């Protein structure tokens, strides 16, 4: 049963230590843009699609 007294404070300390890092990361910009990620999800391209587009833009270029 004593494991409880070790386990909980341990999880707590570990979490606390990295809370600082989290706040730091917010400062580093992870949350700056809350619009484009929702759209980016919709634009997953396979290699074939990328190539097609590449060709298309080449065609336009010439």
């Amino acid at each position, binding site marked *: 049963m004593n494991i409880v007294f070790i386990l*909980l404070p341990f999880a707590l300390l570990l979490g606390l230590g990295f809370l600082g890092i989290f706040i730091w990361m917010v400062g580093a910009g*992870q949350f700056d843009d809350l619009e484009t990620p929702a759209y980016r999800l919709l634009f997953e391209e396979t290699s074939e699609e990328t190539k097609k587009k590449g060709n298309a833009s080449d065609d336009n270029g010439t």
Partner: protein
Amino acid sequence: MTTGREEFSYDDRISRDFVVATLFWAVVTFLVGMVIATQLFSWRFNFNIPWLTFGRLRPVHTNAAIFAFSANAVFAGVYYSSQRLLKARMASDILSRIHFWGWQLLIVLGALSLVLGFTQGKEYAELEWPFDIAIALLWVVFAINFFATIAKRREKHIYVSIWFYIATILTVALLHIFNSFALPVSFLKSYSVFAGVQDAIVQWWYGHNAVAFVLTTPFLGMMYYFLPKAAEKPIYSYRFSIVHFWSLVFIYIWAGPHHLLYTAVPEWAQTLGMIFSIMLLAPSWGGMINGLLTLNGAWDRVKSDPVLKFLVASILFYGLATFEGPLLSIKTVNLLGHYTDWPIGHVHSGGLGWNGLLTFGMIYWMVPKLWKTKLYSIKLANVHFWMAVVGISLYAIALWIAGVQQGSQALAMDTVTHRLKFPDFMATITAILPYYQMRALGGLLYLVGAVIGVYNLYRSMHGAVQDEKTSAAPLSGKVTGKGHRFFEAVPLAFTLLTLLAVGVASFISIAPTFLASDRAIVDARIKPYTPLEHYGRDIYLREGCYNCHSQMIRPVVAETLRYGAPSLPQESMYDHPHQWGSKRTGPDLARVGGKYPDLWHFRHMADPRSIVAASVMPAYPWLETAKMELGDLSNKLQVMKHLGVPYNDDEVRTAAELAAAQAKQIAANLQVQAAGQGSFVGMEDKEIIALIAYLQRLGKDGVKP
């Protein structure tokens, strides 16, 4: 043009494998559910085979729903969407394979062990300790693979789905390990280190969060990926999805004690659980609305696209279940609903409505992508959809009616005589049997719909199966300039913040109970079970009696009149694990000791209908022929002693002899009570005697409030 872009492919095989496994286990889970739903109104449906009795099959069904159907669906969705959101192939194909095959093996062996009666007797966590360790190891394999993939991702921003997955992986690990603390007696037999009130709190802290972090957070993560994909529109409010995530993570973990309202856990813990459960309504409904509004401008497609139909209906069921949950967590409502079939209906609105429909919607969307093919039949998918929706609706409505009737009849008092209005427990059960049949019909519709769905999907799975190739720019100094190392650390930070949220809440809600010492209220009148009673208790656990019988009398007049004085915390202080139960298909047993003669129990176990004509309980005639195996009883008591149960060394050493002596006495009692009607010679070494000893002990230790 292509400078800085890396060519790579996704591991789609792992998603395909998990999709197939999900479909297989879905049918198995629903089938077992159908069997036990039928047993409730026709006990004969266990064919008089011990392995198929309700008490053993119900844990198979619940564990299959969580670990086989839902978990496989989650893995399928997580492997598919994470790779695409992170723009990276899974870190290790080998770890993915180990995860897949290990998990399937675990499910098969686990189900077998439950059917054979190897159980820890903890609801929703019945699997014995070797399986608990295997689950933990496989979970770690999954976690390593997942976090390593995050580390090598090519997309700086971590989409909200990934956070939901991170929370899932961490919290499930924590909950599972914590709740599974047990001391083994042998391979496949162990006792929970927690007892009584502590065990109940830990158990429902785990139990509720299994719902939260296996059946909710990962499915929300999948909703935030697959719904925009299928609707071809971004989520209505990405900002709100982040609020949704953090509020759920902070609030969910506190809600566990709502499973223990009016029980012997401290009042403050109950109130805490109730308040946080009610608070959950806000983020949950926010999430539901966020999902539904995403379809603005695409509602016309819901008519024609079966994927969107499934997803929209699942989100509506999420709304229903997350309204019902807080409602049932209000103490007065819970007084009516607890121990009835209402919570069973509630969990199926969630399980079949939210998880089931989302899973099928997701799979209908994924299969054409993963097999580079088209859905075999849109018409069949629509048939599946309507059968599922009608099925789960019938199911939920039947159990609402049944539950409210059970609850109100159990509590109804005659205002003139101040007696119970419905003293006969069986009258209530008999009255709700038609609703059990209606529920089974609903389940059957859902099952048949699923079978049609599986057929449809099977016919679709014949395209080219290659991994999808793609390209993306790596996350490196070249691209992002300074600071990329910081971003690498972001997932870790989120991870740990989630852990923190969960950890703090857990600590504050659980720690006081422990810190106040193990057995806060030591009551000298409470004695440990005798060796024979302990052996009988193991049979009670093995047969899963707690699936239908509670051992917790709530402090209200109707319960007191029906079952006796309210249960006190100290009465279960030696119960590793506790057996308070959560459902009364049969009456409460907390004070059944001494209520009937030994012979009553003997005949009742052999054929319940010989005593209670309308009984729906299975018969257990094999307990009269199965011999007790007292060989390792000393070891069992030694483990209990180690856990703090005050047995002395003599008792431990001579456990088998003490048990045999008491058994002889009970066999003699039977002979006397039978008054010549039948012979009990040779009965003294049979399992039934130990079970009678245990039942006759319940509530006998002279504790009255």
